[in-house]
């Protein structure tokens, strides 16, 4: 697959204009995957010319990329794959996009997602699902399905996504690319449509680990516009010391997990051992509860965050309402997909008086127990390993009738989200039928650099 340095060689031997024109052509040629909602063609070509004229320079000068369409970015509407924001023209750009542009990178389009990032298959997009890069009858995963597929289709060497409970890692696994969910607070979320503020993070899709490190180095760091960002700490680590202690989370390797998935994880474990690392089975008993915790806390937070879509200041407004209450109700009915409504209503339920202690407060306490278990494990282990999802990419429509079945896809990714820990999905081979499978590497708070260094070392073995 194409790397950033392949693209940089192409720019040197031809021009940024040619590279960007080619990326736009590839995007159009792959239209049937529906990975992109809109191209930012005019702005991209203008920036390419500026690179060729030497007016735009930087580490990524002329390199094309794509953002999930919940990032505010110029050149096309920022829709969050919803009718609510279908025509929303962003007045400013996300910090991550601004930082990439400051290094000369060129955004060529906006990637499909589950509307407002609610979902694990991109089938909740108001504009139709994205198809898997390896099998058009299957899902791309989600919610960042478009970003994952477009990277796997070699249209761009990298893409940005957001991950609230697995939305980068699962589609990365399903499409055979590297997906990074950094430590909570490592990358500014300013200018990204908020979902659940205590777990939302911004991360990357790339075709190899070194490219992820390069992009993360650029987009990470403290931002006064996002007061939850941590002081700068991410520095690419050149190598990894042998003899790491790694825990294989056996709670994620149960009988329900697809045999191919387990086989690929076990092979990766053998490879780690062959390279001088120690891998032992460990237990994370709270993992069993993590999905229930997640589907209380996240709906609670998003029901509050999505209250802003009221048809008043921006976005869709229903026609013909005669009172304000009617305007809110109809605007939100028309602007949200069913999954958005489901989650908002669950959020309203768990936060309502009489239920608050039993659900929301109980979940926040259970979250503490989960975090304590991780802390205990990381006293004895440097990292953890396990699958990303219980299966490879499933069929389009297979899980849409049953929300709980769909939520189960997140069962191995939500625990680290709730705990703010870094976790990455790296390609680990295919299923017997040729579908990509990723393994998940998880580390302590702020251990992003060593996780990536290990993944990079293993990539070449």
């Amino acid at each position, binding site marked *: 697959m194409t790397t950033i340095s392949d693209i940089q060689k192409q720019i040197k031997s031809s021009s940024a204009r040619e590279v960007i024109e080619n990326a736009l052509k590839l995007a159009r040629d792959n239209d049937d995957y529906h990975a992109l909602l809109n191209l930012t063609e005019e702005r991209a070509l203008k920036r390419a010319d500026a690179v060729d004229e030497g007016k735009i320079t930087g580490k990524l000068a002329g390199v094309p990329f794509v953002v999930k369409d919940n990032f505010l970015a110029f050149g096309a509407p920022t829709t969050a794959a919803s009718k609510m924001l279908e025509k929303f023209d962003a007045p400013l750009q996300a910090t991550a996009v601004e930082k990439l542009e400051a290094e000369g990178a060129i955004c060529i389009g906006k990637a499909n997602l589950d509307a407002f990032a609610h979902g694990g298959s991109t089938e909740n997009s108001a504009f139709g699902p994205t198809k898997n890069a390896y099998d058009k009858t299957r899902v791309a995963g989600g919610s960042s399905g478009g970003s994952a597929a477009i990277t796997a289709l070699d249209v761009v060497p990298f893409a940005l996504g957001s991950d609230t409970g697995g939305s980068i890692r699962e589609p990365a696994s399903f499409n055979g690319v590297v997906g990074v969910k950094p430590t909570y607070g490592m990358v500014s979320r300013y200018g990204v449509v908020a979902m659940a503020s205590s777990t939302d993070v911004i991360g990357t899709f790339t075709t190899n680990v070194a490219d992820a490190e390069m992009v993360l180095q650029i987009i990470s760091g403290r931002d006064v516009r996002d007061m939850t960002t941590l002081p700068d700490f991410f520095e690419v680590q050149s190598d990894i010391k042998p003899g790491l202690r790694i825990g294989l989370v056996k709670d994620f390797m149960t009988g329900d997990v697809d045999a191919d998935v387990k086989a690929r994880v076990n092979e990766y474990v053998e490879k780690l051992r062959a390279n001088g690392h120690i891998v032992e089975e460990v237990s994370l008993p709270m993992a069993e509860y993590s999905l229930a915790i997640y589907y209380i806390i996240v709906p609670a937070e998003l029901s509050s965050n999505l209250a802003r879509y009221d048809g008043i200041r921006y976005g869709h407004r229903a026609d013909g309402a005669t*009172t*304000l209450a009617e305007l809110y109700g109809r605007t939100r009915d028309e602007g949200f997909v069913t999954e958005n*409504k489901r989650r908002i209503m669950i959020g309203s*339920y768990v936060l309502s008086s009489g239920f608050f202690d039993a*659900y929301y407060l109980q979940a926040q306490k259970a*979250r503490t127990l989960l975090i304590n278990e991780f802390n205990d494990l990381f006293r004895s282990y440097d990292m953890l390993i396990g699958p990303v999802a219980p299966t490879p990419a499933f069929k389009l429509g297979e899980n849409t009738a049953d929300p709980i079945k769909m*939520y189960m896809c997140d069962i191995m990714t939500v625990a680290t989200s709730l705990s703010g820990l870094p976790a990455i999905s790296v390609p680990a081979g295919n299923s017997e039928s040729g579908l990509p499978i990723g393994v998940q590497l998880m580390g302590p708070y702020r251990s992003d650099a060593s996780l990536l260094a290990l993944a990079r070392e293993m990539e070449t073995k």
Partner: protein
Amino acid sequence: MTQITRDDVLHLAQLSSLELSDSEITGLQADLGNILTYINKLSELDTKNVEPTYQVTGLQNVWRDDTVINYGVTREELLARSPESVDFQVKVPKVL
């Protein structure tokens, strides 16, 4: 099994400022019941004397310089995004 009635769905819709169609109400009634049954799993856990976690960074009282940040956006640009505005004000239907 957590029973959710049609009235519960309508009440939640009202709390959430959602005007739902009839067909959606029926589907949501079943879905919400199933989801609540699933998340009820947490009642098994003993959380006595456990402090809740609301955020994971440990950051507290994050200060910035007391200067206005230039967001590069004008009042006109923001008002232009409202579905209806008059004389620098956003127009809405009557409240009552």
